[in-house]
């Protein structure tokens, strides 16, 4: 495998788009930040890949206009996944692994505030028998949280502790949409929202976009003193069926972690849009108590659809760049109740290459 590193990262997270900018208007300044970080222009980018979903935009082909943000005359080498930024990054990583290109800029965007997110996401479910019942995202997460409590895998206090730690950490994150940890007892005193979930157990509905820059070998070294080398990356999916899955588990997260090789990570940025899901993920990824989880505040502090997973990788990379950690992990999830997962391990050194 080639040595490939994350060398650029830019993000926007907000409760609502200010005014009504198009995706193009949102993306252009993010690309500018990436160029500033790398010293490159768009002609230095070998491959582009985006992640998004038409259902957030409420129209077909929302990614078509987004490519205008690149300035695609002359034409570019480009692709799109109808998935989170993290999977767009995976496609770009593949492209670099084929040897065809040296560099890639990947981006994702989504305007959750344009609709009612929990209902929009219900359209992800099986359309013939399940969708007509309209079980929405928060309700399904509530069922998952209840299943875990009933099984003794966690309790409401453990969930509140996740929230308290995340929202306290988010105080140091300028992009966080929600912050301020309060105390566990105070959190537990707040009213139920979707029993056993309180509002703070659920990620805020967030608009936003993000971009990540990848580079191979010396290209990466030219850009940064401490490139965040991708030394392991894996992803996997489970069957959706809610009736047959053990909702307290996420086998696909476990497989993704096994494929990526997560031993020895110091910091883990986990994409857990509901507090109890962090508990599930910690277990499936086999993270010990000494691993620092979500120092950015995680998805509970801001969850821009289709970029929140990639933002975890970007946050994990920043810890390598600034030298505060030597081995970190970024995780992304997709689908109801942690159905699909990706794990990306980043290192300060390239030893061994990606698994």
């Amino acid at each position, binding site marked *: 495998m*080639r040595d490939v590193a994350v060398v650029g990262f830019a993000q926007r997270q907000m409760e609502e788009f200010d005014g009504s900018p198009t995706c193009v208007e949102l993306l252009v300044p993010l690309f500018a930040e990436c160029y500033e970080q790398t010293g490159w222009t768009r002609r230095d980018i070998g491959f582009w890949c985006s992640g998004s979903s038409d259902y957030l935009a409420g129209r*077909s082909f929302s990614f078509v*206009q987004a490519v205008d943000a690149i300035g695609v005359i002359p034409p570019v080498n480009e692709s799109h996944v*109808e998935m989170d930024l993290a999977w767009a990054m995976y496609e770009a990583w593949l492209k670099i692994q084929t*040897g065809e290109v040296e560099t890639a800029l990947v981006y994702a965007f989504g305007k959750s505030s344009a609709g009612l997110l929990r209902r929009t996401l219900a359209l*992800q479910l099986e*359309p013939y028998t399940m969708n007509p019942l309209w079980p929405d995202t928060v309700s399904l997460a509530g069922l998952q949280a209840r299943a875990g409590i009933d099984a003794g895998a966690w309790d409401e206090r453990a969930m509140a502790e996740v929230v308290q730690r995340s929202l306290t950490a988010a105080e140091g994150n300028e992009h966080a949409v929600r912050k301020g940890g309060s105390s566990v007892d105070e959190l537990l005193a707040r009213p139920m929202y979707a029993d056993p979930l309180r509002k703070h157990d659920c990620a805020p509905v967030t608009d936003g976009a993000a971009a990540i820059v990848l580079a191979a070998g010396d290209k990466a070294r030219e850009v940064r003193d401490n490139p965040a080398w991708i030394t392991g990356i894996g992803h996997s999916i489970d*069957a959706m069926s809610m009736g047959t899955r053990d909702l307290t588990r996420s086998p696909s997260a476990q497989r993704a972690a096994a494929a990526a090789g997560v031993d020895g990570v110091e910091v883990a940025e986990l994409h857990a849009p509901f507090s109890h899901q962090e508990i599930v993920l910690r277990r499936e990824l086999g993270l010990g108590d000494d691993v620092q989880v979500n120092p950015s505040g995680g998805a509970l502090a801001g969850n821009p659809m289709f970029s929140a997973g990639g933002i975890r990788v970007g946050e994990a990379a920043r810890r390598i760049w600034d030298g505060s950690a030597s081995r970190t992990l970024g995780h992304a999830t997709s689908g109801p109740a942690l159905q699909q997962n990706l794990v990306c391990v980043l290192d300060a050194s390239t030893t061994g290459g990606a698994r």
Partner: protein
Amino acid sequence: MSKQPAAVVGIGQTHHRSKREDVSMAGLCREAIDRALEDAGMTLEEIDAIVVGKAPDLFEGVMMPELFLAEALGAAGKPLLRVHTAGSVGGSTSIVAASLVQAGVHRKVLTVAYEKQSESNAMWALSVPVPFSMPVHAGAGGYFAPHVRSYIRRSGAPEHIGAIVAAKDRTNALKNPYAHLRNEGTTVESVMASQILWDPIRYDETCPSSDGACAMVIVAEDIAASSPNPAWIHGTVMRSEATTAAERDQVNPQASRDAAAYLWKQAGITDPRKEIDAAEIYVPFSWFEPMWLESLGFAEINEGWKLTESGATAMDGDIPVNSSGGVLSSNPIGASGMLRFGEAAMQVRGQAGEHQIDGARKALGHAYGGGSQFFSMWVVGADKPSN
């Protein structure tokens, strides 16, 4: 660092119809997958990863349908990627699947693309008004008709060239048991007599709306070597340009020319007209055959129609185009590009049955999408690439 050799060793497609009421979306995909796996002599258990493609989710009304389809696709327990690059998606999906092998990450990859247009209404799924966007153009034909008119004016092509393509592809489709349209007795005259839909595009010069799917198994070098008839991948390319810009040439887009130039170079082809034995080109409206012949480099600018008129693109011509019947005869949008890629592979594997081009050794698979702005192409060959 160079690409690992990869080859197609299994291909499957569904019978394409305007309504496949006998199968769900999952059943449709599985029909193609099962045929591809049988062709490859493999089971789902052996597959390392799955790559799925389809056109906009609004076509069937399910957001990210790969999530609910995961189990039926055989992806539960494996990595699953979902590609969406407009009409070129079937081609792009094949390329992403190939890159998993070419990158040395996986050894046996299954890829599938589908569209079940009958479960919703593609016309209206493409007609959602949003602020700050151009008004829609009453379907794709309305968008492309001015480009066709412009091509006719620029090239001086006689008005029956499009009808030649339509009559050819519909006749070719009769040799393809999976084709949707089976219009016997289609002639240049009968096409010319059909109603004008979007001047100058006639009804018989347009593609149908189909339910259908296509699947392929792409494997690493050593596995391919033990297959009786692998279709080796000699080159792949994707290029994109903007939808609208004053300097855009939508008749002969730069993204198409750039992509072709890169593809031929990668595949070691200097004279595509001579070296390509069969071409499966994305022609949803008949006039796109002469237009793409030019931007792909099979003909000089403004000369593509002469190639079509001469019969060179017919099954018995020297550069047969769409011997399968093409998009004009079957158009499950998300799968249409993969069908072009798959049919090209079938030709070099010698498994195209009645629409087989004798002795085909190198073939082109081509797809485009959006407002003639997204392009994906590959060249496959009966022999392992030497470069």
